[in-house]
C-alpha cells in the first residue's frame, strides 16, 4: 500500500470516528437517549469517566480525530511522527477506557467499542506510514 493510500484511509477512518464522537457528544449535551443494543451505553455515558478535567471525553475524541486527520493530510517527516504519536496515544487511552468499562463499570457501550475499533485501525495505519517513511 502506498503512503498516499495509508493517508487517505486514515482521513476516512478519522472522519468515521469523529462522526461517532459527535453523535455521543450531541446526545450528551441535548439530554437525549443513545441508540444502544448492548444496554450499557447510558451507564458508561453517565459515569464519571465520561468527563476528563470537566470536558466530555467525546469532545476530547473529536479533537483527537481532527488531529489525526490533520496529520494524515500533511506531508513530511514531522507529519508522519505526529500522526503515529497521536494515533498511539488514542489507542492507549481507548484501551484504558475499555478496561474501565469491563472491570469498573461492568457495562459495554457499543459506540465506545466502535470508536475502539476505529482507533485500533488508525494506529495500525499510522505505524505502517511511519515504517514506510523510516525506510
Amino acid at each position: 500500500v502506498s503512503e498516499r493510500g495509508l493517508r487517505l484511509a486514515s482521513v476516512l477512518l478519522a472522519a468515521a470516528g469523529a462522526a461517532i464522537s459527535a453523535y455521543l457528544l450531541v446526545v450528551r449535551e441535548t439530554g437525549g437517549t443513545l441508540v444502544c443494543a448492548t444496554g450499557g451505553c447510558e451507564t458508561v455515558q453517565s459515569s464519571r469517566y465520561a468527563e476528563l478535567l470537566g470536558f466530555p471525553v467525546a469532545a476530547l475524541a473529536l479533537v483527537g480525530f481532527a488531529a489525526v486527520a490533520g496529520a494524515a493530510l500533511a506531508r513530511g517527516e514531522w507529519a508522519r511522527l505526529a500522526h503515529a504519536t497521536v494515533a498511539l496515544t488514542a489507542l492507549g487511552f481507548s484501551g484504558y477506557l475499555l478496561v474501565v468499562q469491563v472491570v469498573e463499570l461492568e457495562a459495554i457501550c457499543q459506540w465506545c467499542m466502535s470508536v475502539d475499533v476505529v482507533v485500533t485501525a488508525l494506529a495500525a495505519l499510522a505505524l505502517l506510514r511511519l515504517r514506510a517513511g523510516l525506510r
Partner: protein
Amino acid sequence: MARLQTPRWRFAAVLVTAAALVALLVAASRLRSEPAGPEPVAAIESALAPR
C-alpha cells in the same frame, strides 16, 4: 537531536511520547474519578470527637 535522525530513535521517541501522553490522560481521568472523601472540617471534628 542527532540521534533523532536514525529511524530507531525516531520510533522510540514516538513510543515514549505516546506513552507519556497516555499516562497523563489516565492520571487526569483517575484524579477526576476518585470518589470524594469527607469534608475537611467534618473529618477533623470526627477525629477530635470524644470516644
